[in-house]
């Protein structure tokens, strides 16, 4: 089996301020940050966005990134090196159309790593053929849209494909449909599942039991807005289960960046979440 190769990206993360930038002077003293003393600077982070995309939406939610160039412009504006990307047509139109568009439009863009959307083998794609296509065309991760495409993401429908995903450690990205998450992991506890775009009401009570039970369940941080949520999570479960994601083009790319950059967690944890964990997951993929 071939190991997926992830392109090296230039380090474009936010570093410490240059010498001529205004010195910031804050430090913790007795639990308070006191102006005039030095604050802990953010570490150099090598950002890899696990959840970003482009395409023309039928009904825009936020910004419109119609093309890869638009997405790359935003990545550059924010200092993000790479992205694991989707095409909006995969969700809003069809996986058949969107998968092909994504590959065509990201060709020659080494910073953009495509994901494909799945469909049931009973109606569309047999697991073996689908995986062969993934291998041949360099797709190392998948997304599922069970509501939009009207299927059940479970062993009955996707058993053959999910078994292959487990064996090949191919990540599957899914929205915050927690009942589905629980059911698919009950049947395939070793599946590498990344839940993206969880609710801004805070889904901790829904995902923490699953995090404790299933060791290959991961969360993206695109909408993990909960006050001190990242720190609270990392303290309990470590940093390995979180992946920086922006949720672009719907969500503001820099929001989750600043949240992570100054979460009250060790620098090593920030580096892992910013990109290290995703790189590790993708390096484990065998097509």
């Amino acid at each position: 089996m071939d190991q997926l190769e992830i392109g090296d990206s230039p380090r474009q993360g936010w570093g410490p301020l240059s010498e001529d930038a205004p010195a910031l002077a804050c430090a913790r003293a007795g639990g308070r940050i006191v102006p005039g003393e030095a604050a802990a600077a953010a570490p150099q982070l090598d950002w890899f966005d696990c959840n970003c995309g482009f395409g023309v939406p039928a009904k825009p939610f936020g910004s419109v990134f119609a093309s890869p160039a638009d997405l790359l412009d935003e990545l550059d504006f924010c200092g993000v090196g790479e992205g694991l990307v989707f095409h909006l047509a995969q969700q809003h139109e069809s996986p058949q159309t969107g998968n092909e568009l994504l590959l065509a439009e990201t060709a020659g863009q080494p910073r953009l790593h495509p994901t494909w959307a799945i469909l049931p083998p009973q109606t569309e794609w047999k697991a073996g053929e689908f995986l062969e296509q993934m291998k041949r065309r360099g797709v190392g991760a998948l997304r599922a849209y069970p509501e939009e495409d009207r299927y059940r993401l479970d062993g009955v429908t996707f058993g053959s494909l999910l078994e292959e995903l487990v064996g090949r450690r191919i990540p599957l990205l899914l929205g915050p449909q927690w009942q589905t998450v629980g059911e698919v992991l009950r049947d395939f506890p070793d599946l590498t599942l990344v839940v993206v775009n969880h609710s801004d009401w805070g889904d901790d009570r829904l995902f923490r039991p699953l995090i404790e039970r299933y060791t290959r369940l991961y969360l993206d941080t695109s909408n993990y807005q909960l006050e001190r949520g990242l720190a609270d999570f990392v303290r309990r479960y470590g940093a390995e289960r979180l992946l920086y994601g922006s949720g672009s083009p719907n969500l503001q790319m820099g929001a989750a960046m600043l949240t992570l950059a100054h979460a009250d967690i060790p620098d090593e944890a920030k580096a892992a979440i910013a990109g290290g964990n995703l790189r590790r997951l993708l390096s484990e993929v065998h097509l």
Partner: protein
Amino acid sequence: MKNDSQIAAEFMAAGRSKSCPVIDMHGHYGYFHGIYFPKPCADGMLETMDRCGVTCIVCSSHSSLVDMERGNREMAEVVSQHPGRFYAYRTINPNYPKTAAKEIARFPEDPGFVGFKFHPSSHSYPVTGASYVPALEYANEHRLLVLSHCWGQSDTDGPKLFSKVVGKYPSATFLLGHSGYGEWEAAFAVARKFPNTYLELTAATRVSGIIARMVAEVGSEKVVFGTDLPWFDPHYGIGSVCFSRIADEDRRNILYRNAERLLAPFRGSGSGAPATAPRDAVCSRKLRFRPS
């Protein structure tokens, strides 16, 4: 990285900006159903505010959304313990007009209160309803702030409803909480038309591009920052402001200048002095009931 904002650079480097403080105009306090909060009371909120460079916050307690007397009392206690860091809105529940009248009458008793909080969606009562009128008249007479939940397509607090209200009370200042989330253009129209109406950013900050649209269509002078703390980490919203395609002067207006101007009349009421009571004195009573 092509964002040349000095403010963004400062926040990314240090988590706060010496030159750009943050004032949070939309906070809450305490526990609430449906969501896990790690530390939702004064101690935790102040830690987070310090970490993010938030100098002060204006809150209504979650309890006040259910039982306004109990909740407003709780908020008064918090404000008295942390003058200058916590300010408060007095919540009005229109389903209890007699109690609301008492709460309005109590307004002068508690320093640090800057106006009223309406949550028409939670109370299933339209912002145009008669039970809000006494509070609106009082706010108008005393030049107070009114922060109201304002959500797109809502039949109780959708932005179009505010166009029927805010013009009647020109001396009150209205903050459209969440900026009419999802029904943006209608909220923009109200903020553009009425000088006494501002857009407030809580939850809206997640939506990419929306802050730049606000600035372009309404002007940064009419946008204030908020987080729903202890719901949302301030850095999430600040990050959104920092990475919006706007100028640093707009960022300053949004993050603190507009709020400073709005809060200036109230700064005399208990501002500046260091807190003398231990943090979390109020919340500690609740903590007794938490599982260890």
